[in-house]
């Protein structure tokens, strides 16, 4: 059971204790982890963009709003209850500091805001976060403890 379940870009996975979840190299993307200790399940979504404005049904997990909402719905099928769920988020960095008309610079920030807003709408408590700045993050969630480990290039590990 040491092998972590990989969550790719624009993807989402739910596991039972004691499985682990991992998302590699989040830059401006945001990883949202939701843990229900009573149902013993945890979910992780790896979103790229803030809002699913065109209601793209094929790529639900590409967007913070539809991605988180769908993850919570699926966790509900597996016995999860919103009032017991806690969330941890990481990512949303600004990897390049660039001038001009391009909106690439603030995608990370918009992703963080959209993730927080969606969690608030769903009334899920945001328990911990490690967001922003200018470096990438690989995140691993241990479902048993709920610990989220963040690994970055040239930096110490962070556990939230």
């Amino acid at each position, binding site marked *: 059971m040491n092998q972590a379940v990989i969550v790719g870009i624009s993807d989402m996975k739910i596991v039972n204790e004691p499985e682990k979840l991992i998302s*590699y*190299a989040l*830059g401006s993307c945001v990883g949202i982890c939701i843990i229900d200790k009573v149902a013993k399940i945890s979910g992780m979504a790896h979103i*790229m963009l803030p809002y699913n404005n065109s209601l793209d049904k094929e790529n639900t997990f590409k967007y913070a709003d539809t991605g988180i909402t769908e993850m919570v719905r699926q966790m509900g099928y597996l016995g999860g209850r919103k009032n017991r769920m806690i969330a941890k988020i990481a990512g949303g960095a600004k*990897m390049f500091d*660039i001038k*001009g008309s391009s909106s690439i610079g603030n995608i990370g920030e918009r992703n963080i805001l959209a993730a927080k807003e969606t969690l608030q709408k769903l009334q899920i408590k945001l328990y911990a976060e490690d967001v922003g700045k*200018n470096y990438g993050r690989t995140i691993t969630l241990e479902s048993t403890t709920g610990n989220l480990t963040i690994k970055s290039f040239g930096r110490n590990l962070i556990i939230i």
Partner: protein
Amino acid sequence: MDLNEIHIDVLKEIGNIGAGNAATSLSQMLSKRIEMNVPEVSLLNYNEVINSIGGAENVVVGILVSFDGDIEGVILFLLKKEFVHLILNSLLGSELHNFEEISDIELSALAEIGNIMVSSYVNSISLLTNMKIEITVPSLNIDMSGALLDAVTAQFSEIADKVIFIKEKYFCQDETVYSHMLLLPSISSLKILLNRFGLDV
């Protein structure tokens, strides 16, 4: 917006033209005889780009330049360790053991190389299409390739799931190194660019 085979061929050709020029200026700057193959231009999705540069956690140098004028968008250069070592060794005589130890002087040398390569790239597109294109000061970061790539992929994903990916192979003495470049025009610029080649989108 849907791109068909013909659109893709034109984009590949645009990628080809600029790449040769960029390699020539690199060769001049390093005052080394650098030979190159015809660049490989392909349309790849995020995962394919990641695989092609050694996996999401492989640490690389990313240089991002945005361009505007008649068309706008961004160009992202991704340089693996071997390529960076070749540049720094030729320019400054330094040995790069790992990215953690890179100095400020080495960083600005890299940014300058990136700037010159992107400029010569953009100039050749500008000449070919007779359009005015200006580039901004480059922004450089060293990090996991997946992290450097996701913002530009996210931005471009409103147009297409794939990006224009240009891989060049250089031979310098007995070494072979690769550079990787992503060309990401905005949706309206992509239309303008294709229109110049007589294609409707």
